[in-house]
């Protein structure tokens, strides 16, 4: 479903050039729930931004399904992002001037088809994530965790085929984290959605089918979930520990 081949990306800041991704290679199968882990600054956000073509990359290829996003026309790309991708930003990116309800519905609003169905779904997601009572507030008036849950709800409103989530549980207590992970799990089982989630939380990652460890701009290791969740979490923790030892 998602193929990332030999991806290179560097940032230029003034005269200096920072090589962030140095040949990232992996693929995610249709309907797979994958977590991406790695130390802070290892390029996880950059990777997600490249996948959704928010930023141009230097070298490599990314294909989603059959399509190579980088080669698409602007209109196609926009349509694809709108209908096929659900994106959760690390810093939420809610629009300040709109209520939470409107923010959640924005992907539908962009299509100009806010059906009663969509509104019902918005309400359902809101009650699932425990944000029903703040639906008419503005982003400036709610807590960080509530913003995050609203951002997750927004990513699910369009029944996306692929969800790219950047630390969707970073600010959440275990109950809310659980709700988010379960919502992703449901998207996976009901819609056969593909999910790629960046996280620092090994507990959240232990719900995934596979974990990709990112280090120094390359894929360090991939771990498969054998089926036993707590066993998988322990494996993860030791792998991460080992990775951090090797400097």
């Amino acid at each position, binding site marked *: 479903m998602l193929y990332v081949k030999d991806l290179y990306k560097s940032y230029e800041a*003034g005269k200096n050039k920072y090589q962030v991704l140095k040949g990232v290679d992996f693929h995610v199968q249709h309907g797979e729930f994958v977590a991406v882990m790695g130390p802070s600054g290892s390029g996880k956000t950059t990777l997600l*931004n490249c996948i*959704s*073509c*928010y*930023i*141009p990359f230097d070298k490599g290829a990314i294909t989603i399904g059959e399509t190579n996003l980088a080669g698409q026309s*602007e*209109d196609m790309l*926009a*349509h*694809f*992002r*709108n*209908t096929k*991708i659900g*994106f959760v*930003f690390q810093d939420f*990116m809610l*629009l*300040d*001037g*709109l209520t939470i309800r*409107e923010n959640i*519905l*924005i*992907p539908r*609003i*962009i299509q*100009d088809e*806010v059906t*009663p169905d969509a*509104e019902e779904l918005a309400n359902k997601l809101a009650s699932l994530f425990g944000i029903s009572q703040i639906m008419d507030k503005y982003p400036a008036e709610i807590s960080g965790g509530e913003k995050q849950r609203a951002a997750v709800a*927004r990513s699910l409103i369009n029944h996306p085929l692929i969800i790219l989530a950047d630390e969707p549980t970073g600010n959440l207590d275990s109950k809310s984290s659980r709700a988010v992970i379960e919502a992703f799990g449901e998207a996976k089982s009901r819609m056969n959605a593909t999910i790629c989630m960046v996280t620092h939380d090994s507990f959240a990652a232990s719900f995934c089918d596979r974990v990709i460890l990112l280090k120094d701009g390359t894929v360090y290791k991939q771990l498969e979930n054998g089926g036993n969740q707590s066993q998988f979490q322990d494996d993860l923790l030791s792998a991460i520990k080992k990775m951090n030892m090797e400097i």
Partner: protein
Amino acid sequence: MNQTVTLNKVEQKLRHANRKHARLYLFCNFTALMIISAYSGLMFSPTIQTAFPSGGDSRKQMNVIFILTLIGCVIFTIYAASLFFRHKSKQLGILMALGASRKRLAPTLFREILLLSSLSSISGIIAGFPFIWIIWNLFRLLLIDSTDMQLDFDFKCLPVSLLFFTLVLTFTCFTAWRYLHKTNIMEVIREEHINEPVRELGKWCGPAGCLLLAAGVLMGYWGPSLYCDLANVMLPPAWMNLLYAPAFAGLYMIMLHAVVHGFRTYKKQPYKNILSRSMMKFQGKQTVNNMIVVALLIAGSCFGIFYIPVTAVGSMMKYAAQPYDYFYCYRADQSIPDESTVRMLAQKHGLRIKDWERFEYITLGYGGITSVMEEDGIHFHEEYDRILSESKTLSEDTWRALSGMDTTVRSGTYLCITNQEQTSYSVSPYAEHITNMVSREQIATKYAGIAVSDFSSLTNTPGCRILNQKDYDRLIEGLTDDWKGFIVRFNIDGKDSYAFADELYRLLVGSTDDTCMVTHYYDRVNKTITNEKGDDWWGDQPSEAPFMRVNPKQINSISFRMGWMYHPDFRILNQNDFLLSTSVLLMMFLFIFIVCLMTALVICYTRCQTIALNNRYIFDDLRKLGASPDFLAKEVRSQCRSVFRTPSLVGMTIIYLIFILLLYGNDWQLVLTELIALCICLGILGIIGVCIYLIYRLTVKNIIKKLKIR
């Protein structure tokens, strides 16, 4: 729940959330266009057009400052628009990231900016007219009023504002287009927080900038005349104006230095004022642009206001120095009121005339050097003509009686009369022949120096020369009355009266016939000679009429009072009329001062406001980190100070030095009146400085209140 949440509705809501930024943009655009429209409206108005001699220096200065203001406003509106977009881009970026296509976003975005720009621009253009009308009429009400000051509009000025309006529209549309076509969506989202660094040059860039600035000004000022001398051409080619370019580069470098390094060394306390310095660097490009514009505008405004003392002091001192109250010349063939008529008129006004004296002068043809254009129309060579131009001529004895000086003129030579400062343009040492224009008796002669007089009737073009008595007697032989004339002078016993001077002036004008209604430039000798060759005299061309003839019906106009060849020197009339006769010029320059200063202050104010608006979160964070209100207030002050101080100081210093250069450069010396004028200018700079300081204080107060620091 409401079923019709559409993208349009959402965008409308977002616009509402953006209204603070939109309002700032509206304000900036409105102000810029109002200023442009007012300035161009005034500049193209017939009132100003007739008052400013075309091709004259004052008109050139007015145009240069207009262009300066125009550039200032262009940069200012661009700045305002980019501020607006900087804020707007986050919303755009998020919508794009969530899959809104360009096609979807473009119409509303363009509609919004077109609406905002047109609304503010058009209302600005319209508001410009009442704005200037009110200012102008306040001048008339409070300062000076004359018939010349009747303000008329000519709608030829509209293209300027419309051009500017188009520019604003083009720029905003282009910016919107650029944002929509960025492929890096993250960049669009983060636009507001993206650094715009400036090129960091070393510490040498400040001093080097000063040098470049000085070099540019000197080269621009003297380059053209040097070029003309070297290449033997009359007019410097237009590209010579590019010689001023280094001055702008220098200005840029000075501002860069101020932004990057500051003018103090922070070696001992590297963290002092670190916040304001880093914020300035963070938006370095905007800061530098803004500072340049403000410096130029302040320079322009000072230039405008300096014009007034520089013109007025010289004239006022000259009138005060006049040794006689009344002094006038007239041609002998005119039926000018005689002594007894004038005495009776004085009696009517309760005045008594004393020291009445009348002297004779004659008008002769003098040789001189002319520049003859070669066939290419660019180069020229010089030729000597035996009979070239006219000049009043006094005999040695008359001059002694007139001046009280014991001057001797040797036979075969002549003296030129000039003013105290020796700045009169009528001194010409090239004549080698003098001719009686009736009998064509000609004698050889030579320049032998100058004599000094305080009366402009003798020093204005066509000037006046003194001959040895024998030469004079020989040349007067056979002259008809129209080549002869009289000089009359007298004093008033006791206090003079303006009413008498005015009535006498009107009487003089009324009893002079049409042949004498000519300007200083009208040269009968040159005309006669040219006509005798069978050519048409250039001064007779209809296009030259405004420069050659005056209309006695416009006796109160500037062009008549400044231009008439026989305009008398009546001290009280001159003193009273000086302001009146130059009112339009003075008021125009006063207006330029107000407009430029206002623009500069508005830009500074806006800049400070945006600092407050954009860095609100920084101040919030600082407060959370435990910064005291005093510390925060100090930061605000230091931010605003940097916006106001450096450009004001630089602008004022530059213009003051340029003025010294101008006053020195016109005659290679600084005479007393010029020194006094420079002192007055220094005082004015002080007043302007205080004004700027007050606005600065107000701005700081306003921002501190907005940020809720206290």
